[in-house]
């Protein structure tokens, strides 16, 4: 019982972070119909930016986080400028290939800048590593902080789309780009900000996850796969779907590791993707209307 509750708590915490990674993938896909294959590397860059600011430059945690998120936003915008905007006319395949190219470049940059100092960098813990007791469940205070922060990011994200003008322009552009252009929305600029927002969410999830795990230049790909599994599970265009998908992937992964073996932990996301594509091609929440391909 104790093992199960421990696994669930860990699963929910990492799941919330996968949900954030998935959110970034979904936002960009919804607007542009592109799966940004550099999304994992945007996550990685966010983590290293925070590491540099917090550990190397010794800025306090909160400003480091904010700056890292802003930096991720800027790299996201760069992705749009380099991969999406110039290649959109050439077709989806060119854009996808370009995002792969960006992922390699970012990985290379990270290896040069951060990879040399021992492959794995540890981010200092945010709060005392003492475990806490809530009812019968032991929980690391660190996990609790991360979980709450992840929920806060989701709320901010939802509020942004529901209430701000920029958020509504993004929704409108995702829903019908031609009509968006006809009401006077600067559609290519919205795409640019969408890539930025997607990357900012990736950066936010990275700085939250960093204290729980280790940072290394290749962390992007496994994280991308988990976030992508969560996004596919949620239907690839649904924000609530991505969140539920993220939690499911996180929990499944922990249960698989705890009851079957740790070897399965890292492949569980692939298994989820496979089953989701076979049995739930429209995601757990189903799809409203039709999807343009």
């Amino acid at each position, binding site marked *: 019982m104790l093992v199960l509750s421990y696994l669930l708590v860990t699963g929910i915490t990492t799941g919330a972070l996968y949900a954030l990674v998935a959110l970034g993938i979904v936002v960009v896909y919804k607007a542009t119909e592109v799966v940004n294959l550099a999304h994992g590397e945007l996550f990685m860059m966010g983590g290293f930016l925070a590491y540099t600011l917090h550990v190397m430059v010794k800025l306090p945690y909160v400003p480091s986080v904010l700056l890292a998120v802003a930096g991720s936003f800027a790299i996201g915008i760069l992705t749009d400028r380099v991969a999406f905007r110039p290649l959109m006319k050439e077709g989806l395949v060119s854009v996808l290939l370009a995002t792969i190219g960006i992922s390699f470049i970012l990985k290379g940059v990270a290896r040069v800048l951060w990879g040399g100092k021992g492959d794995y960098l540890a981010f200092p813990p945010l709060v005392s590593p003492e475990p806490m007791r809530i009812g019968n469940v032991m929980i690391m205070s660190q996990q609790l902080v991360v979980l709450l922060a992840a929920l806060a990011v989701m709320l901010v994200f939802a509020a942004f789309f529901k209430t701000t003008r920029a958020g509504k322009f993004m929704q409108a552009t995702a829903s019908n780009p031609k009509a968006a252009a*006809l009401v*006077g929305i600067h559609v290519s600029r919205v795409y640019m900000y969408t890539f930025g927002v997607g990357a900012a969410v990736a950066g936010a999830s990275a700085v939250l996850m960093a204290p729980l795990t280790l940072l290394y230049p290749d962390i992007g790909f496994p994280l991308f796969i988990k976030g992508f599994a969560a996004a596919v599970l949620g239907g690839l265009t649904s924000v609530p779907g991505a969140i539920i998908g993220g939690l499911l992937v996180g929990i499944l992964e922990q249960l698989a590791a705890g009851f079957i073996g740790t070897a399965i932990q890292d492949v569980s996301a692939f298994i989820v993707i496979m089953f989701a594509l076979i049995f739930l091609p429209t995601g757990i929440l189903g799809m409203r*209307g039709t999807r343009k391909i």
Partner: protein
Amino acid sequence: MLDVQHLEVWYGPTEVLRDVSFTVPANAIIALLGGNGSGKTTVLNAVSGLVAPRAGTVRVAGEDATGAAPHSMVMRGVVQIPQGREVFADMTVQDNLEVGAAVQQNKRAIRQDIAEIYELFPALRARRSARAGVLSGGEQTQLAMARALMARPRLLLMDEPSVGLAPLVVETIIQTVRDLRARGLTILLVEQNVGVAAAVADHAHVLRDGVIAYSGPACDLIDNRDVLASYLGR
């Protein structure tokens, strides 16, 4: 208000508009007619900046606007209500209207405009929190018009607003078009329904084979069976 000269548009290897010239005087209602696939929507899209003309000029209020981007045409006061309405189906009626004011900056003015729009279209007020996708065809047409008005247009480009609507609803749309003109707007109305065009427009142009094949007072259209037969193919 709008002056289109020698417009030529190609889609890849196919020429759709060969040499289209016409003008829309300020505060007029001008109809643009033509059979299926004759290029009516293409004319509007070339004016709106959605497709780039290969040749020709588009002038708005005397200024050259050829090849301007869609958002810049909206800023010049030229707003299109697209064929098939194209409302933002996943968003609420209210959000559709707010997004319609994309080129407006003043929040207070936007709120006032929305209030005024609800006066003009009471049916929309009743459904302000509904998703646009669940509205009836007539309501969606109203929403598409209302959304366009949120941009405070000087020239409205309407693409077949009457399609698929019951005769009574078409009547209300005709009335709305007249009201808009009375408020000072200029309207270029694309139609396949000659009755609608004859009822509201001052003047009509008929598009065929990539050129304006016939121009004349709109009221002559109904009587002129030869024009209808030869140019519209019915």
